[in-house]
């Protein structure tokens, strides 16, 4: 979605004062023009990665703090596009989930097309108490299932969070792993098991 369209959404649908941010639009446009000129496709990283979708456009334009009406509108759109697993079968194999949580590989220009994309979980979150090399950009998920239980609502909420974090927090730092196609349904099921299975080191 172009910046002009996002401004039109803001102006027409929501009647918000959009004029004061026009200078930001110019700066953003200049940055995008420079990026499109100065980046080149390499390996799996094509120039289409600079085509912004509605969420990126709006978060960029409002410095990650868009008007609440716009947030609600776009979050609802993102949530509506979440695909839940067949037959409500949320939980896979926690051991495979652990391998995915550990792996930060995939989607960079230096990764071959055959490199399996990891879940990147430990880059930003604390999970199993035995793994000390965890990042802190995201909240701690230690004892996730043990603390929260595994009610149907919680399973559904957690699935949606991994599938598309922007469905509940529009400009969240967390990638949209399912929405972007980085992780498939089977992989998300394994990561879910890593979070919820009582045998998983996350809960022991």
């Amino acid at each position, binding site marked *: 979605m172009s910046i002009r369209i996002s401004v039109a959404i803001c102006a027409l649908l929501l009647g918000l004062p959009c004029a004061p941010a026009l200078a930001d639009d110019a700066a953003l446009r200049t940055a995008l023009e420079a*990026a499109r000129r100065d*980046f080149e496709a390499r390996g799996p*990283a094509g120039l289409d990665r600079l085509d912004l979708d509605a969420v990126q456009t709006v978060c960029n334009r409002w410095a990650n703090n868009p008007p609440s009406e716009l947030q609600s509108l776009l979050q609802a759109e993102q949530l509506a596009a979440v695909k839940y697993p067949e037959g409500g079968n949320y939980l896979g194999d926690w051991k495979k989930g652990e391998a995915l949580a550990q792996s930060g590989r995939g989607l960079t220009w230096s990764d071959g097309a055959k490199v399996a994309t990891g879940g990147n979980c430990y880059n930003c979150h604390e999970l199993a108490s035995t793994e000390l090399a965890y990042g802190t950009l995201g909240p701690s998920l230690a004892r996730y299932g043990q603390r929260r239980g595994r009610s149907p609502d919680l399973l559904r909420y957690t699935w949606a969070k991994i599938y598309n974090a*922007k469905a509940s927090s529009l400009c969240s730092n967390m*990638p949209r792993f399912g929405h972007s196609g980085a992780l498939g349904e089977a992989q998300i099921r394994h990561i879910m098991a890593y979070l919820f299975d009582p045998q998983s080191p996350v809960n022991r």
Partner: protein
Amino acid sequence: MKPSSRKTGRRAQKLLRAGAAVAAALAVAGAGAGQPTAAETQAEIERYRAMLAEDNPAELYAARGEELWNTPRGPKQAALAGCDLGLGPGVVAGAYAQTPRWFADAGRVMDIEARLAWCMETLQGFSAADIAARPFGSEDHKSDMEALVAYVVTASRGYPIAPSQKLPQERAAYALGKSLFALRAGPYDFSCQTCHSQDGKRIRLQELPNLTRREDVRRAYTGWPAYRVSQGEFRTMQWRINDCFRQQRFPQPKYLSETVNALITYLAVEATGATYNGPAMKR
């Protein structure tokens, strides 16, 4: 060879052996189920530093860079003595600390690396394509540019970071860098800010400077360019920005492009006034 270079040469074997040992230790520790703990990693680096006393392998790159600077090279068989890094032809001391800046002869804002490339093109007759072909070296393929940068930045140790913002083109480069820093895109919706806009955060065990805070920018910027122990190579700011974009899952920024120079300008201006203390030794 000057006496100082000979002394540096003797240290070379010792330094590189020690560096390889630490890189191997880190790799082994990282290959197990768990990564090394922060304390283990830090201890390993401290051990390395102690082993080297005040020596930093960046010195070896700087010594090679000095030789490259003084040696007639390229199709025109010219040395870089006539290269104007901003303080006049051949003046190296303190020049890096005043970049990026506008260079009227080139008609663009350049960081130190873009300026060196300009001199290699105009004075020595190298082609831009040759210079951009392999800017980031490896063990098998040492980069002349990395060595030249090591030499030039080392000659700015102790100088205050002072990139010019007098001209509108220089201010435009800063503004562009600031906008690019916040630009979210790609499959993971990452921008530079995703990792570098909060205090005290880390990825795995790697601490992340908050580059929206001057104090952190100053600390980070005055240590770069740097010798990277885990890679066993000296790395420049062009490499630093390039590798951040790789991890952001962006396409690759062209070497010496306006985008990369603008981001370096943004960081340099934010670091203004801090004393250049690099090149540092980084994990």
